[in-house]
């Protein structure tokens, strides 16, 4: 008989990642076999790109670091990136899996101890984290091992590091959310809590960068870099002040053949074990109360604000737009998955800016500052278009309604009237997100107001017609039978197909712009954007008029 935790973990793993459903459809029933193919075609190239990038980066950092006596710079970078990402995404993952999932009301009725639920849920998140970590850490570890001609000790140490590394960031994220959940009356403040948590993490990241800079004792970025690299293990020590486990992990691997390496490995394993003990205690003492407080909701007891029934009348378009936006933003499962891209870009751009260290900024190295204004404009348009697909707002708009779709279906509105506000709502979020991302980039690269302004205008047009097509795509096969809302976005095939299709358009347009640059015909870019927008717009118009009503009636 399996232990309760293992049993619970397997069941959660199966449902969370759709493994049972996949087995049932693809292996037992041999149905929908085209789905894994499309997923591989959509995401496979990203995977290859990520592995190739990590491989090449390791080589560069190894050779660069060797000159300063710090060849394990690549390992340190890899473990730090993985840890920071694990902490950042882990926090949101933990919130949605621990507290906002629909299985808690069932689990709480079972004879399970709260730490058992907590551990099984943490296990599910850690498993997902392993897959993501493998993308970065495996190529880095293998490439470093080959370059350093590492032995068996290195391999053993690397395996342990790989297994243990995600634990500490996720324990920190879990502890943070468990405590926050206990402090705040959750069901009423979920949105605010998520926002506060996200901001808190950003503050930690920015604060860490600032603190690092202050601790090294110089404001001059070039001096800072030189100091970090010239001192033996300078960077290692500096990073170690911010997040020691990543240093222990890197040193455990780099010095695997020495006692120093094994001591670092011991630190890492021991601190992870300690983290799990802390989590166990928190689980017993705090988790259950937090969940029950959330489940109890806001019924009774609290003081209510007086409700004013007077209301400004709005047309169907505005009221549906506002409803769509509210429903998207208020559900952390939707909002976190959809908005994360908008947050990451400005953060990535601002991070080096905050540390005043422009050198080494990947954006800076791409030479965006010296691009032709017409190329900048074209790039911004493509950025708007890609981001609207990445947000998944239009491509999951009907799927997200799930069992609530009856409300919209019984409203006296044509499908055209229902599609338009959905496109507009996606565009409102996309515009705000993209403009916020563009501001630091424009400042960083000194782009002019005109090219940015026209880029935004073209981007709005292009992304709007793409959003129309994505909404119709979701209308054609909405995923309505979900219980956990996260499935409506993350496991929704429409979002993957939408992203893939949009990427293909972006890639073709990008290739066209590249050709324009090579043949000195950059002036063609606005015409090309007009033409593509016109073609896609015509298609969207045709589908909305002739196909959408049939699809709507068929649901």
């Amino acid at each position: 008989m399996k232990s309760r935790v293992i049993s619970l973990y397997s069941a959660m793993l199966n449902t969370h990642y759709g493994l049972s459903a996949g087995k049932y459809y693809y292996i037992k029933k041999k149905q929908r076999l085209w789905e894994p193919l499309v997923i591989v075609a959509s995401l496979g190239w990203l995977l290859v790109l990520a592995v190739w990038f990590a491989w090449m980066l390791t080589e560069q950092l190894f050779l660069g670091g060797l000159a300063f006596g710090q060849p394990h710079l690549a390992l340190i970078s890899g473990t730090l990136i993985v840890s920071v990402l694990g902490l950042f995404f882990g926090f949101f993952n933990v919130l949605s899996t621990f507290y906002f999932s629909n299985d808690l009301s069932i689990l709480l009725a079972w004879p399970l101890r709260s730490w058992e639920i907590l551990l099984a849920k943490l296990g599910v998140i850690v498993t997902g984290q392993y897959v993501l970590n493998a993308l970065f850490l495996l190529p880095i570890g293998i490439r470093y091992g080959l370059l350093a001609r590492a032995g068996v000790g290195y391999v053993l140490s690397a395996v342990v590091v790989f297994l243990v590394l995600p634990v500490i960031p996720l324990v920190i994220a879990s502890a943070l959310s468990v405590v926050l959940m206990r402090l705040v009356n959750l069901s009423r403040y979920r949105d605010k809590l998520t926002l506060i948590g996200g901001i808190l993490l950003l503050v930690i990241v920015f604060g860490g960068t600032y603190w690092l800079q202050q601790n090294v004792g110089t404001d001059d970025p070039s001096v800072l870099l030189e100091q970090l690299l010239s001192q033996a293990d300078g960077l290692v020590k500096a990073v170690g002040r911010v997040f020691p486990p990543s240093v222990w992990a890197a040193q455990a691997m780099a010095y695997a053949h020495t006692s120093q390496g094994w001591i670092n490995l011991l630190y890492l394993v021991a601190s992870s074990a300690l983290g799990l003990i802390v989590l166990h205690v928190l689980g017993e003492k705090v988790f259950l109360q937090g969940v029950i407080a959330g489940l109890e909701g806001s019924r009774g007891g609290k003081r209510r604000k007086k409700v004013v029934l007077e209301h400004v009348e709005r047309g169907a378009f505005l009221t549906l737009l506002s409803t769509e936006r509210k429903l998207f933003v208020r559900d952390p499962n939707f909002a976190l998955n959809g908005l994360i891209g908008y947050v990451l870009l400005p953060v990535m751009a601002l991070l080096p800016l905050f540390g005043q260290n422009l050198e080494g900024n990947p954006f800076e190295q791409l030479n965006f500052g010296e691009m032709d204004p017409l190329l900048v404009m074209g790039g911004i348009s493509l950025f708007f278009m890609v981001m609207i697909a990445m947000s998944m707002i239009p491509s999951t708009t009907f799927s997200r309604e799930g069992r609530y779709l009856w409300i919209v279906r019984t409203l006296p509105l044509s499908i055209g009237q229902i599609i338009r506000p959905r496109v507009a709502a996606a565009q409102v979020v996309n515009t705000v997100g993209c403009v916020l991302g563009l501001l630091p980039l424009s400042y960083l690269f000194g782009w002019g107001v005109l090219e940015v302004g026209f880029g935004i205008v073209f981007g709005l047009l292009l992304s709007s017609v793409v959003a129309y097509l994505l909404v119709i795509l979701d209308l054609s096969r909405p995923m309505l039978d979900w219980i956990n809302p996260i499935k409506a976005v993350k496991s929704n095939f429409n979002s993957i197909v939408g992203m893939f299709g949009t990427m293909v358009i972006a890639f073709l347009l990008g290739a066209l712009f590249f050709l324009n640059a090579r043949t000195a015909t950059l002036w063609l870019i606005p015409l090309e954007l007009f033409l593509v927008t016109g073609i896609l717009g015509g298609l969207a118009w045709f589908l909305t008029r002739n196909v959408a009503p049939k699809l709507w009636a068929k649901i």
Partner: protein
Amino acid sequence: MIRLQGVSKRYKGASTYAVRDLDLEVRPGEIFGFLGPNGAGKTTTIKMIVGLLKADQGKVLVNGHDLTLDPIAAKRSMGYVPDKPDLYPRLTGLEYLNLIGDVYGVDGPTRSKRLAHYLEMFQLTEAVGDLIQSFSRGMQQKLALTGALLHAPALFILDEPMVGLDPKSSHLFKEIMREHVKQGNTVFFSTHVLEVAEQLCNRVGIIKQGELIACGTMEELRTGRDRDGSSLEKLFLELTDEGGSYEE
């Protein structure tokens, strides 16, 4: 008010019809009860009337509007409360009601007046500012009912409205149905509770295995054939038992 002509529906992959060749007329100003055992086709019929399902064959006319040709006009004239009213959990009650009010074009003063009336009646005035996810099932049902009545629809359709309601709320629901009909409107509802149908309905229809097996006033059903003065319960059991059939 409602006219179903030869309406049939068979779900994908099913060997039998959920609703077969259904002819039914619900007249203006009446409360019509739609009865039948579990799986008889009541909810399927209702879903076809409100436009949630498309009939494979036949015609659905609501207030003179063909649901296939002019679904918007048909929907505008009705209000619908499903058996399990799943409402957006992350909207407040008031946001949901204002959404309905805006879509159905209920003007501000009328909206405020009706909202105040129904919310007071359902004792939701204080809770309406809360998120729907914090509402009990009964509260959600009352909110759905308020939303369905907000535009004073000529036709009010309810699917199993009494399920899960406490006696006080059930009484309130019945009063609302009566009040709605008094204002010249029509109510069509499905139910398992035969006493409710007996007390409220001007006419009832009984459906079994997708086919209408009886339709008429209580009096017509009771005195039909050899059933002199039978209770609705006895009648229902008799009719829905294997082999039982009755035509008006």
